[in-house]
């Protein structure tokens, strides 16, 4: 099937303004008749739930944590982009649009990216009004920094905790609506099924994580804002509870999964320390503004103390390979370059999977106090984990899975192919193409939540009768029974392997075969291994405890079961995409000097996969991408 993204036509500068006018509205006195379900309370879900509640709809919001404030948006450190152009350095909506399309390696939809760039400015104003303590100068004006491969200073930040502060802003807006009674929050509740009635999304089935009770909720529209899926790699920078479950269960009900192979590997993470490690920790890539990446030129120097490697024997590989962007090269490029050095036996630290990030030059230039002011909390975090002082000795970093550009397919309205099912934030595929730029995830989450969903969900609701289907419909009962059956099945296996062991095993395959460099052979190897691990899981997993109680093993088992199906689609997408673009690097498709080679003629499309059951071939649907405002060009940072 050829998918239509329903992007507006005509001049792109006016596309969102015109479209907003064209969309239908719901009369204020009718809004209270509609109910909207929002799954996830991070930036997209929290902002969306609060805003829809404020408009007058009845909103039920769900999160698996004990509070909406704990969603993993909170961990974003560096900042949020906006085209305010306060520093007068040549920024504009068009430039942010251009940078995002180019940064995404020409695999995103133009109209969506334009809208994002346009509303970026409203986001900053909104957050300021909420009391988000952005960095300011002594006169009181908002401060900016340059970030993640941008040549203008368009990033707003709140120390190294920008995600936290923005989330607390959305959380406060949500608290205000909870008090007003428009939003009802269901914490410690996990979505386990999407209820579809006659092809339309009409509700969800959830598990109360405290009591184990399975219950259904009806809604006139369902919004999934459940985040990304890179815990499919087991070790990642995501929180332990992040999973593909909400989006995957929707995919099992017919929602198409778009571009799952676009995963982002973040270059500045703390290297793995051992086999028992449960997660990887990211340090803001703002560190690359002042840190210089290097490895020894000679493999025999790798074991030496970095101070004993003389300047002429160091390879500042990013500065060498990309003289104009240097250490600020975008994430996918910087990650791949680090891997190349380590594959060349010149990595440092345990297992030689690490590169140095050295602040000596910056400290000599601006003094240690300035560096402390800029990155103090990151140095502190680094020292806690590694027991090393980053001011005295270069930090060691290595890339780690961090963000999913892929997600459920949505049209310009953020609506999936299932009418009534909206998908926002990291959970959808829309604006980052094949690679996300730094400080753009926060921007997208809040854009979707505050400024897109309120319009597009209203437009959808205006065309349907409120409460036409409620939870007395037989589909709800069926959904509850299906969920209960799966839980019983899991608890009955009573095998010998733990969920943790099997997740590690899957993660190892995904990281080695479907990680930073993918080949036909490695992907086929993964496609052989994933079903084996899935069979092992369904025959030999051991989960203690019962269904009707707080049971964290059972929660993890359900999430792993979904990863074990989803991993196969991710790998098949990577195998089918015979080109290298952004975070997707196929070793068969590179230039002589190792740069990614896109194939625009054959692959300028969104790959949206329809799940046909575990072990069956998924069906590929394509949405062709058209570039009318920006010329397709080779993405060069040299």
């Amino acid at each position, binding site marked *: 099937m050829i998918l239509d993204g329903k992007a507006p036509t005509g001049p792109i500068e006016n596309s969102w303004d015109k479209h907003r006018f064209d969309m239908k509205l719901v009369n204020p006195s009718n809004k209270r008749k509609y109910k909207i379900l929002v799954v996830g309370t991070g930036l997209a879900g929290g902002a969306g739930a609060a805003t829809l509640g404020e408009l007058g709809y009845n909103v039920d919001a769900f999160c698996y944590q004990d509070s909406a404030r704990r969603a993993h948006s909170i961990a974003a450190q560096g900042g949020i982009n906006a085209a305010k152009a306060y520093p007068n350095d040549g920024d504009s909506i068009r430039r942010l649009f251009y940078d995002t399309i180019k940064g995404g390696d020409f695999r995103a939809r133009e109209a969506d990216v334009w809208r994002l760039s346009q509303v970026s400015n409203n986001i*900053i104003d909104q957050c300021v009004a909420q009391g988000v303590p952005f960095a300011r100068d002594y006169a009181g004006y908002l401060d900016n920094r340059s970030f993640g491969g941008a040549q203008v200073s368009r990033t707003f930040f709140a120390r190294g905790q920008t995600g936290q502060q923005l989330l607390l802003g959305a959380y406060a807006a949500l608290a205000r609506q909870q008090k007003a009674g428009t939003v009802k929050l269901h914490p410690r509740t996990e979505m386990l099924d999407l209820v579809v009635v006659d092809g339309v999304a009409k509700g969800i089935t959830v598990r109360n994580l405290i009591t184990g009770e399975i219950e259904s909720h009806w809604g006139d529209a369902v919004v999934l804002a459940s985040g990304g899926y890179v815990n499919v790699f087991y070790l990642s920078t995501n929180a332990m509870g992040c999973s593909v479950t909400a989006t995957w269960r929707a995919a099992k009900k017919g929602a198409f999964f778009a571009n799952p192979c676009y995963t982002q590997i973040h270059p500045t993470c703390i290297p793995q320390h051992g086999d028992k490690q449960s997660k990887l920790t990211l340090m803001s890539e703002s560190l690359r503004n002042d840190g210089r990446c290097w490895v020894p030129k000679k493999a025999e120097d790798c074991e030496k103390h970095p101070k004993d490697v003389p300047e002429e024997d160091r390879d500042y590989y990013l500065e060498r390979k990309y003289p104009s962007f240097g250490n600020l090269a975008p994430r996918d490029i910087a990650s791949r370059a680090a891997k190349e050095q380590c594959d060349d036996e010149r990595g440092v630290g345990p297992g030689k999977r690490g590169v140095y990030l050295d602040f000596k030059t910056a400290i000599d230039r601006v003094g240690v106090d300035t560096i402390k002011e800029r990155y103090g909390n990151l140095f502190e975090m680094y020292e806690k984990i590694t027991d090393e002082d980053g001011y005295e000795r270069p930090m060691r970093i290595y890339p780690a899975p961090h963000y999913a550009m892929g997600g459920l397919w949505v049209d310009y309205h953020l609506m999936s192919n299932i009418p009534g099912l909206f998908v926002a934030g990291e959970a959808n595929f829309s604006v980052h193409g094949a690679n996300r730029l730094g400080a753009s995830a926060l921007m997208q989450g809040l854009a979707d939540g505050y400024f897109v969903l309120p319009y597009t969900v209203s437009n959808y609701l205006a065309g349907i009768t409120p409460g036409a289907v409620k939870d007395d419909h037989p589909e709800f009962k069926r959904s509850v029974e299906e969920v209960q059956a799966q839980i019983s099945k899991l608890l009955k296996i009573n095998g010998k392997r*733990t969920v943790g062991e099997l997740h590690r095993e899957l993660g190892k395959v995904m990281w080695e075969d479907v990680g930073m460099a993918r080949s036909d052979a490695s992907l086929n190897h993964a496609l052989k291994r994933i079903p084996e691990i899935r069979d092992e899981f369904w025959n030999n997993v051991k*989960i203690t*405890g019962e269904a009707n109680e707080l049971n964290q*093993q059972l929660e993890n088992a359900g999430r792993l079961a979904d990863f074990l199906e989803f991993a196969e689609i991710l790998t098949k997408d990577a195998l089918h995409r015979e080109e290298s673009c952004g975070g997707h690097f196929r070793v068969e498709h590179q230039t002589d000097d190792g740069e990614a080679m896109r194939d625009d003629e054959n692959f300028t499309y969104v790959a949206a996969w329809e799940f046909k059951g575990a072990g069956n071939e998924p069906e590929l649907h394509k949405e062709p991408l058209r570039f009318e405002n920006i010329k397709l060009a080779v993405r060069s940072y040299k």
Partner: protein
Amino acid sequence: MNLTLHVWRQKGPKAKGKLETYQATNVSEDESFLEMLDEVNEELIKAGKDPIAFDHDCREGICGMCSQVINGKPHGGQERTTVCQLHMRSFADGDEIFIEPWRAKAFPVQKDLIADRSTLETIMQAGGFTSCHTGGVPDGNALLVPKPVADYAMDAAECIGCGACVAGCPNSSAMLYTSAKVAQLAVLPQGKGEAKARVKSMTDALLDEGFGNCTNHYECQDACPKGINVKFIAKLNREYIKSLV
């Protein structure tokens, strides 16, 4: 290293709990405290026993989910450190470690080390926000906030809402938690308009939810993994008095 753990086990909110003893063996000093517990749990599962339930999520010290009293100290007592950022190199071979949940009337235990902290949510809903609408707000630079004021607000805003201040306080007071939000919004021009109503409704909620009052022990500041200063409690008190006149 090898350690002996004494862990609070409690089947459910109404069940009686007690300390159970477990051995943690071959622990690496590079592991985090929670990774050490993961390993203990793996062994328990393989032995067909119920693993220790504990709250955790981001494991990088920012989500505020993890919440354990270790050897009598919330988060283990290391300065500016959450449980998830506590590493095993702070312990020695042969150590005995006592692990308990947050203990407060306002935080009933749900299972093992997991406490119900929804009372903290109620305090925030009572007024921890500015009543701005989405859209229709002025330009971000229309409200000038000089750096010292922005920094003061940010110092307060760093609170991760974990509840260690409550667990550390002999009165089980949530005053540090409440004051951080009151102070942040009281100094910013965006929040000033509602400052009087906010401090009143938030402190009312604090008392209604079963938290104690503040009697200046400063244990909260000691327990806080983000270094939130008790000066914000003084600020809350000043705001409270101002609200009465």
